[in-house]
Structure formats: C-alpha cells, structure tokens
C-alpha cells in the first residue's frame, strides 16, 4: 500500500468502501471482519497508488443523509456537535481531494462503462473462487 506517486490505475469506489473508510478502526465492538474492512478502506483511500472514482451520490447524498439521520434520531441540538458534524463532511471531501481521488457523476458514459467492466470482472472472479468457472 505504500506508494511513491499516484499511478493511473483507477478503481470505482462503491458506497460500502467509503462507509468502511469512516469506521472507527480501533473500536472494540468491531468484529474481526469489520476491522479488516475498515483498515483496508483506510489504506486504499489514504495510502494506495490507486486513483479512486467516487460516485457523487455517495459524497453529496449518502453521507449527508447519514449525518442528518443520526442528528435527528439522537436529538442532537448541541451547536458544537452540529458544527463539528457539518465540518466533518467537509473534512472527508478535503481528504478525498488531497489524495487525488475524483468525485464523479454516476450517470456519465465513461463511469458507467468502467463500473460495468469492473463489475463483470469481479463477478467472474467470485464465480471462479466458488469453483464454478476457471478464469
């Protein structure tokens, strides 16, 4: 995962990996699998060579949705907390920008093409791992 400079390898990042990225990797209640996923996502986003293509809907819709849902359900009215919540969203966007990743529109021809291609390859690998098809 250690990189000298970012290369041109690109990965389309799904919502799940971005969620894993935001998990608390040192929290005791995380299962072994969750911890591994969180650590992997943290390294992928911050330490890897890959340029990630992040669907705009994840950054602009899903994350704010989760933040506002938590605020409403937990009845957060403390201004300090609310301010920190808003700034945390900006902080995550900042990290993605500094790391050189790109927030992309989902309904873009190239993005859909890349996504479909990757999905096909991942699906084939998964079938292969289950012993169905040799790749």
């Amino acid at each position, binding site marked *: 995962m250690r990189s000298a400079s970012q290369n041109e390898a690109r990965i389309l990042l799904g919502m799940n990996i971005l969620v894993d990225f*935001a998990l608390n990797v040192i929290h005791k209640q995380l299962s072994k699998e969750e911890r591994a996923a969180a650590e992997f996502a943290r390294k992928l986003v911050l*330490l890897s060579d890959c340029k990630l293509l992040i669907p705009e809907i994840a950054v602009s819709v899903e994350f704010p949705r989760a933040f506002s849902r938590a605020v409403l359900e937990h009845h957060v009215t403390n201004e300090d907390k609310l301010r920190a919540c808003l700034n*945390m969203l900006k902080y995550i966007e900042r990290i993605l920008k500094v790391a050189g990743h790109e927030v992309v529109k989902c309904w873009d021809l190239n993005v859909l093409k890349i996504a479909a291609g990757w999905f096909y390859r991942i699906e084939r690998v998964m079938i292969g791992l289950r012993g169905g098809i040799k790749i």
Partner: protein
Amino acid sequence: MKRSAVTALELFNELSGRFEKLEEEVKDSATKFIEGVWEDFLKELEAAFGDAFELGLEGRNLQETFALFDRLAVQYRGRLEALVEELKRRLSEELLRELESKVKLALEAFEQVLRLLHMLYLHSGDEWFLYLAILLYALYKSRYPDSIYAVAGLGRFLRNELEEAFARAAYAARERLPRRPPAANPWENPKEWAKALELSYHYEIGMNVAAELMHEWGIADALREPE
C-alpha cells in the same frame, strides 16, 4: 500509534461550550508563541553557528535550506537536539495551557496535542488548526537530526508558505510516514512530499479522531444502515 488515554468524545465534551474562546486563545497564543520560538531558534542558531548564517535562513530557497541544515545537523548534533526537544516541550505546554487540569493530566503526550488541534479544526472549520497539527505531527514523528527540518517547516508556516512548510516537515519524518514520499528530492517535487505528509497525518491522527466521534454520535451506524 497507541490508543489515546483520553477518547475523542471525552475531549470533545470537556471542550463543549467553550470551543470558540479556546480556539481564539489557542490561535492567538500559539501564533505569538511559535513566532517567538522561531525567532529564538534563529538567534540561537546564529549565535552558535554564525559562519553558516552569512546569508540568513529566510532568504534561502528550499534546496539551499536543505544543504545548510544537512551541514548543521552533522556539525552541531548535541546543541540542535536540545533545541528541538525544548521546542517540543514548550509547544505542548503552551497549547495545553488553557485546558482544565483533569484533562491536561491525561493529555501529556505530544500526540494528544495533535488530537486537540484536530478537534479545534473539526469544530471551527479553520484550516489553520489542521496545518499546525500536520506540522507538529511531522515534528512528533521525526528523529534527530531530521527533526531540524520540521522546525524549519514551522518557519515557513509562519510566512504562510504551506507547500514548502509541509515539504520540509515531510522530509523530517520521511522514515516513519505510512505513506512513502516520492523518490525525487523535496525541492524537486515539494507538492508530492507535502501530500505524503498530509495523508499520513489523516491516516494516523485525523481520521481516527473523526471516526471516533462519528461512531459515538451514531453516524457510523446511520451510514451502515440502509434508509
């Protein structure tokens, strides 16, 4: 890095209700303090190594600064090491001065200063706190004689030359950064060096503080649960 003695939530709750006052005080006092320390540092260097300072430090470009510090670090090891340790001690004291003694006791480690600064950044949105935290992170990660470059980074930070500040500081911590810096020298590619430092900071400090708060405030659960 080890798990911190004080959780992000405990620290946030301790500061809640007086964030604005603390941010103002820390920014004001830390700026004056770093300016003072930087001037003292330059004077000390000039007094000790006058011959090497004939051109002055401020007027040198990045490559010349590295050449100068390379020379000084070898020639004056003991003196420079003491100067850097004194700087780290005084910075911790100054930044934690405003906190209650109960929290301060648990915040002795230099790493906790970084968590405090990151929390001030998350609350205020003021990137000044983030920049200072990143530079101090480099100081924290560096070992003598390289730490001298992190101190030199603080000097550039005062002049608002962030890329050069981060590049110098990244060089100081290069052996211990989780994100490996580029193969080129810092003066050849300061942007990539700065990036390596900042992302390493987010990996080891920044995202841990943010994720801890997101977990405690139920945001992580809301992210994982479908609508």
